């Protein structure tokens, strides 16, 4: 295993908390302002002891931001630039229309635009987490995050955990009374075997477990991890992939067994059937440790709905209860319609265009950065609900740089730069995903602006595979601007900075072919430092991002807002940027 | 355009001996390009039990004429004139189909290729009694008739096909048989056999036969009377012997000149110079004038009326009239 992902997070002694199920209180505020985060605040849930995430004695960490600070956004009005987190907005409409076709109300249909390709909890590494997060559970879960320095972890299968001073030895105490869907009880061995399965397969997100050197069941409730280097294991254990706990009976099975529609987790739902081309069906697990109450979702149908227009029709007709991936304008009309709530919250997805450093001089790159219509796009195409990026790390994540100086759109300055460099009448190739409408529209708007200063932006749509292959094969002959989304494997800025900008001999995801020794040193140092001095690490990560801006390594367009539509007969939906597109059906409640 | 005057037919008025009497038949086709006059005033009689030959070059209107009588021209065509059957007036809307049958030129095309002979006979005769159907084939001179009922047209020879077509024609027990170039597509031996068959049928069933042919030899062999058409009008009509041995019309003469005969072997065949007139243009005077070796000044001014040359033999040519 490489050293790509060494996230060192030492010097901590955590006695962390346990949230929460059943989260029956997680409804929206009565006034309809969607304080979604309220739902996940342990205090608010208040069912069980919720010890606060303990800051280091040094007091370097800020208190977790009060979830109440999430503001309601006024439609059409751009959000204030200051908040690091784009506000979570729920445009809720009361007076929901009851549809007689809905039946008893415990059935929930999730209109899913992406194929559920791999249901193996050890190797799945794509949108499968929308299923896996409901069927399997992890030791911890990231429940709140203010995007600057700290995050709040809750225990799921772990009731509490501790680490030694240099964060190399971790001990997790497991929750009592947890059983797998096949009836066997949760044991430390099961946890160890599950993680081993991921490590042995070496697929998907296995690399995040690289620090683990040794795992041992201390007693029938406790498991100890010895790490080869300091790492925030509790954070790692909240990842979307690779850290699910599997029943001892299932952990020996192969990939095909899981993809045939078998599963055995501890989650609130059992996998009933799985047909990647049609739907994945879940049914509630009666013996779930969190217990069940009236009005909760009993059966789930995660239905493949690739056509967004169809998804829109389904949710309008109440044939589906949740979807995302609709064009942004559509949400307004959905919000106007009674019976559908629109939830728009921050995500950890960043949209940016990598500038080809081999083909474009710094002047041209700067001109491109200056010419990009940031505000026009966030205000118009996203109805004011998107925020402009400050560097590549999304502002919903720690390590982002809220004070980063970013240029304003200035076509004249861009034009001057090009004139000075003697670069007039140039043509720039903008490579984007065919069929991804926002990348296309952004390209079209940008193109119009560039045309006024004599630059021809050539929009080149290809499938991601095709353009990725092209970009990897021939940096000098490839595109000038490579547009892409990036979302974190688990919550760390290093993932963004390393993957996309670290010097690479053979280009892989560094498709701007950026290479800067100082930058490389900074982020590696930050990565190491984040184990012992997180504040210092953040400082270094920020400096690294300043280099990216100074060097015009890319056009950092915007933090993509996570927009979702959910039928308003269900309450309790929480948009958590760390688990985008995941609906925790267990937390939903029919009105 | 000068209106073409109605011409009295070869015999005016119906007589007891007439099965069919056509008076001043005019047929005009109306394609978008403008009217085409195919038949421009034809009157003729068909007598009971006779075989009437209708002669003329291709395009002179002989096929169209009888198809109009049978109601088989497109609805867009204008047909005027009158038709009598046994003295009673008859519409040209297909009413004649009740008593007449049509034998077409090409027996290969006249039979539906995807149905057996028996099935086609069945549809026409409106009986599926194999004995009856086989008898029809036998009447048409086909041996081994029962087996033929199950045969498809492509399995039969040309002669057998034409006999099958004749059997089909007989199936409706017609009084009148209109044979449109029935032998043109056949070889010489079969041709003779089929002609003999037609003669036999007339004798046996008292059928009246109209034989349309461009071949004067065929007409001479079989027909009692002959009508020669040119450009949609009757040029000459009369008993076969009269007309063919002593033609009065220069057109008939020219037609006869163009027939190869053993008697005149070695002599160069005469061909008729020029083309038949275009039906789209009005014709002033005699239609044959441009090709006529005997053309006179007055040929171009008025249409010649049919004049009796002998009793029952009429010729529509100014040569029959005293020169002005």
């Amino acid at each position, binding site marked *: 295993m490489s050293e790509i992902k060494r996230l060192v997070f030492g010097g901590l002694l955590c006695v962390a908390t346990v949230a929460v199920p059943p989260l029956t209180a997680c409804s929206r505020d009565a006034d309809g302002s969607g304080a979604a985060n309220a739902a996940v605040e342990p205090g608010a849930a208040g069912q069980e002891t919720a010890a606060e995430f303990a800051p280091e004695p040094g007091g370097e960490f800020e208190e977790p931001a009060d979830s109440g600070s999430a503001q309601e956004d006024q439609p059409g009005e751009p959000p204030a630039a200051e908040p690091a987190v784009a506000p979570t907005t729920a445009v809720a409409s009361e007076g929901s229309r009851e549809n007689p076709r809905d039946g008893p109300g415990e059935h929930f249909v999730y209109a899913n635009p992406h194929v559920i390709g791999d249901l193996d909890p050890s190797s799945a590494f794509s949108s499968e987490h929308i299923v896996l997060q409901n069927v399997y559970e992890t030791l911890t879960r990231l429940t709140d995050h203010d995007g600057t320095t700290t995050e709040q972890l809750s225990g799921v299968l772990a009731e509490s955990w501790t680490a030694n001073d240099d964060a190399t030895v971790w001990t997790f105490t497991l929750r009592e009374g947890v059983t797998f869907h096949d009836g066997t009880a949760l044991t430390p061995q099961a946890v160890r075997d599950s993680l081993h399965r991921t490590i042995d397969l070496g697929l*998907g997100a296995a690399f995040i477990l690289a620090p683990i050197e040794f795992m041992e069941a201390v007693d029938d409730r406790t498991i100890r991890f010895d790490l080869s280097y300091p790492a925030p294991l509790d954070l790692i254990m909240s990842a979307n992939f690779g850290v699910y706990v599997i029943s001892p009976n299932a952990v020996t099975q192969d990939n095909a067994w899981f993809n045939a529609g078998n599963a055995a987790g501890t989650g609130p739902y059992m996998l009933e059937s799985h047909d990647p081309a049609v739907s994945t069906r879940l049914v509630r697990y009666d013996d779930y440790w969190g217990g069940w109450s009236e009005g909760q979702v009993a059966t789930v149908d995660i239905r493949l*709905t690739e*056509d967004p227009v*169809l998804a829109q029709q389904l949710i309008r007709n109440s044939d589906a209860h949740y979807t995302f991936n609709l064009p942004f304008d559509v949400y307004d009309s959905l919000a106007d319609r009674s019976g559908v709530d629109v939830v728009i919250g921050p995500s950890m997805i960043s949209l940016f265009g990598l500038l080809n450093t081999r083909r474009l001089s710094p002047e041209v790159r700067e001109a491109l950065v200056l010419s990009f219509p940031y505000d026009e796009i966030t205000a118009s195409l996203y109805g004011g609900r998107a925020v402009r990026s400050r560097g590549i790390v999304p502002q919903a994540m720690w390590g982002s740089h809220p004070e980063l100086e970013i240029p304003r759109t200035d076509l004249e300055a861009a034009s001057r730069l090009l004139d000075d460099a003697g670069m007039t009448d140039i043509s720039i190739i903008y490579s984007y995903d065919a069929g991804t409408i926002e990348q296309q529209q952004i390209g079209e708007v940008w193109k119009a602006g560039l045309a006024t200063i004599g630059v021809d932006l050539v929009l080149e749509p290809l499938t991601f595979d095709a353009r990725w292959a092209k970009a990897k094969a021939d940096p000098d002959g490839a595109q000038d601007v490579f547009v892409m989304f990036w979302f974190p494997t688990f919550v760390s800025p290093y993932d963004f900075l390393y993957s996309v900008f670290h010097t690479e001999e053979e280009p892989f995801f560094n498709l701007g072919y950026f290479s800067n020794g100082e930058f490389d040193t900074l982020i590696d140092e930050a990565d190491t430092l984040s184990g012992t001095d997180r504040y210092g690490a953040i400082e270094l990560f920020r400096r690294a991002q300043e280099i990216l801006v100074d060097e015009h390594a890319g056009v950092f367009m915007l933090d993509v807002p996570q927009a979702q539509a959910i039928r308003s007969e269900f309450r309790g939906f929480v948009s958590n940027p760390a688990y985008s597109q995941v609906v925790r059906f267990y937390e939903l409640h029919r009105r | 355009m000068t209106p073409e005057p109605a011409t009295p037919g070869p015999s005016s008025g119906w007589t007891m001996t007439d099965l069919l009497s056509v008076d001043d038949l005019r047929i005009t086709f109306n394609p978008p390009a403008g009217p085409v006059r195919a038949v421009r005033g034809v009157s003729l009689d068909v007598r009971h039990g006779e075989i009437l030959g209708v002669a003329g070059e291709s395009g002179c209107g002989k096929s169209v004429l009888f198809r109009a009588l049978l109601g088989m021209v497109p609805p867009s065509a204008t047909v005027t004139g009158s038709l009598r059957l046994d003295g009673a007036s008859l519409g040209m809307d297909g009413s004649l189909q009740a008593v007449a049958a*049509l034998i077409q030129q090409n027996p290969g095309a006249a039979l539906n290729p995807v149905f057996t002979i028996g099935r086609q006979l069945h549809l026409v005769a409106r009986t599926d009694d194999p004995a009856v159907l086989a008898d029809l084939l036998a009447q048409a001179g086909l041996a081994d008739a029962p087996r033929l009922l199950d045969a498809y047209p492509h399995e039969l020879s040309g002669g057998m096909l034409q006999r099958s077509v004749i059997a*089909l024609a007989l199936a409706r027990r017609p009084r009148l048989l209109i044979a449109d170039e029935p032998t043109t597509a056949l070889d010489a031996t079969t041709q003779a056999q089929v002609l003999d068959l037609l003669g036999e049928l007339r004798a046996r069933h008292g059928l009246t036969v109209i034989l349309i042919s461009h071949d004067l030899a065929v007409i001479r062999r079989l027909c009692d009377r002959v009508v020669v058409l040119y450009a949609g009008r009757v040029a000459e009509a009369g008993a076969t012997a009269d007309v063919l041995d002593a033609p009065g019309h220069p057109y008939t003469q020219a037609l006869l000149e163009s027939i190869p005969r053993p008697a005149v072997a070695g002599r160069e065949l005469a061909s008729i110079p020029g083309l038949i007139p275009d039906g789209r243009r009005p014709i002033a005077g005699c239609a044959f004038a441009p090709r006529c070796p005997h053309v006179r000044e007055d040929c171009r001014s008025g249409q010649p009326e049919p004049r009796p040359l002998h009793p029952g033999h009429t010729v529509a040519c100014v040569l029959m009239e005293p020169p002005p």
Partner: protein
Amino acid sequence: MVPGARTRIERGGRGGASLRRLAMSSLVILGVVTITFAVSRLVPSDPASLYAGARARPEQVERVREDLNLGAPVMSQYVSYLGELARGDLGVSFATKRPIAEDLRRFLPATLELALSATALAVLIGIPAGVMAADRAHRLRAVGIRLLAVTSVSMPVFWSALFLQLFVASKLEWLPLAGRIDPGTHFATPTGFFLIDSVLSGSPSNFLDVVSHLILPVLVMAAYPLGLTIRLVRSAMLEVLASDHIEAARVAQVPWRTVLWRLALKNALLPALTVLGLTFAYSVSSAFLVEALFAWPGLGKYFADAILRVDLPVISAAVLTVTVVYVSVNLVLDLLQIRLDPRVVLS
């Protein structure tokens, strides 16, 4: 989207025709497979990355590249690819890692159900309508049918689908929006043809459920073949109606209905038949759009997805399947033609 209405496709020779055709069919299949291989090699893509997944690490991709023998020269890849096909080994999808044979078993019936229903609808309505369009006795009706035909062949499926879904399914709520069955409906699916399976299940409500889901996509899909069939049958009918034997039948006072519907139609069906095969091919081809729009888990979409993802094993398997289906449909049509046309049986 099959180029305009063409009537005849010449036939092969007569003697030993079937055997020769079979040999030719295999050649055609080989040709198709080769075209696929050639074109898919042009695609600037990296199958190894695809197999390893969109966010795989470089070393995972490298391992896959070795496993899949993707570094080999193109010719040797082609040969081994043909070898695998010859052994009937369809392999595993790069993208989903599922056995392709298993997917085909599910997706092919779904598409065939759709395509056959659409073709059946097109034929059952198209042939009588084509006959009526050739019948000059009812001019207005004929013109109306011809306009219907032209509209059908001019309507983009993705447009008609949208409006049918919008009005019939969303507004009026008469029919379901999409899918093959209601999510709540369950029955055993031994054949994969839900129409048949629902009948086997013995419950009328299952059958109704299947039928109600089938109506909209079939309507959308049938439009083009319907228009095509009408136009073909009409032009073949006009040809036949002008023939001597029809004139003979009319003079013989065979009733017009019999002339039109029995005598002429049987002749006209022959040229129309050959085109049915193409109609079917069109259906399969346009299926991927219809399937995407109606969330219909069929071969067309499976195929189109594979193309977009450059999922080579799936592309080749799907091409092979479609070609085999196409060739067999044409074979069946040939047999049908032999039944209808006595002239072909010779020797």
